[in-house]
């Protein structure tokens, strides 16, 4: 595959045959979030809403939060008003919810495709960048590069390591022990 995304016939066939394999859920997801996500997917989402459109909607609030923090606190030294933290929290919650229910909506409307998986994982990384900015702002890290680098693996760059694992094991492993992205987001 070229860097501009030109796929060969064989690569397109491989994408067509691709089956997404992932690991299990964490206890927090099973007992707390899963019933809530199922309720939303089965009772609150309209049938005409495409899962890919839902995935794109998940990016709205994280990007809004990023823009607000970029404008109000470009130095990571300001004490921001409460509504900014509420927006940052809500954008995390929004992203997490949409990320969980877009797959359910795809299965419900019989619209599962490898394209959904590709789009979903791409937007994840954009959201992690937005979260990194919010985290640095909350912690008032300023230009302290050591601290910024210390939280980078946990907040911003973990997705590359997950992709690395997927590339060699063919399993999208996001959960290690009892800790997964849901727990990580709850902490953030």
């Amino acid at each position, binding site marked *: *595959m070229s860097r*501009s*995304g030109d*796929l060969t016939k064989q*690569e*397109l066939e*491989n*994408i067509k045959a*691709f089956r997404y394999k992932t690991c299990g859920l964490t206890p927090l997801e099973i007992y707390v979030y899963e019933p809530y996500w*199922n309720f939303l*997917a*089965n009772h609150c989402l309209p049938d005409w809403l*495409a*899962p890919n*459109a839902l995935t*794109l909607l998940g990016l709205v609030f994280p990007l809004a939060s*990023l823009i607000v923090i*970029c404008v109000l606190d*470009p*130095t*990571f030294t300001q004490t921001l008003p409460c509504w900014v933290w509420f927006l940052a929290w809500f954008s995390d919650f929004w992203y997490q919810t949409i990320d969980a229910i877009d797959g359910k909506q795809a299965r*419900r*409307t*019989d*619209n599962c495709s490898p*394209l959904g998986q*590709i*789009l979903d994982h*791409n937007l994840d*990384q*954009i959201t992690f960048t937005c979260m990194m*900015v919010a*985290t640095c702002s*909350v*912690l008032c890290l*300023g230009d302290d*590069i050591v*601290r*910024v*680098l210390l*939280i*980078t*693996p*946990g*907040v*911003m*760059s*973990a997705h*590359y*390591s997950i*992709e*690395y*694992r*997927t*590339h*060699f*094991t063919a399993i999208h*492993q996001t959960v*290690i022990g009892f800790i997964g992205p849901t727990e990580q987001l709850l*902490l953030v």
Partner: protein
Amino acid sequence: MPGTELEVKFGDIFLGFGSLAGIHYNLENIIVSFIQAKDKGYGLGCMLPYVQFFAMMYASSFSQLHSDYPIYFIVLCGFYLTWLTAIFNLNSTSGARFDWIFFEPAVYLLIVYFDHAKFMDRNTAIYCYVGFFGVTILRYLMLMSNIVRQITTNMNLRFLLVKPTNLKKQE
């Protein structure tokens, strides 16, 4: 902290926990994958862009602009990582080998070097960083639109519309 003059804030506890959890998470993924990789050289090569990303993050701190605008450097490196991860993800999905040689970090490091050594003034440096960011975003958007177009055409899919079918209610 008792017995020392060190003042530990709540943020530091979060930072310590977050960094330990993050490093452990990343290391486990990397080590498990590397052990399973049949071609160890290729496995190491695929790690190079990740190392380059951290080098870009660290190098950013040498810029004249970093103390005034650290946020924009994180956004710049974050979107570069997004483009990188997108290519990696597409390679995994399409069963292709990941071409792990990227020259973009070298270009970025060169910009930071010229900026740090004051071979260019602040305004020129801003233009260079904005240009690098713009090119990264443009390439990412072109990559994604190209992929969406090819997959939807080849698999006869709709991108932002549902296909008319019976709904399957999930239990």
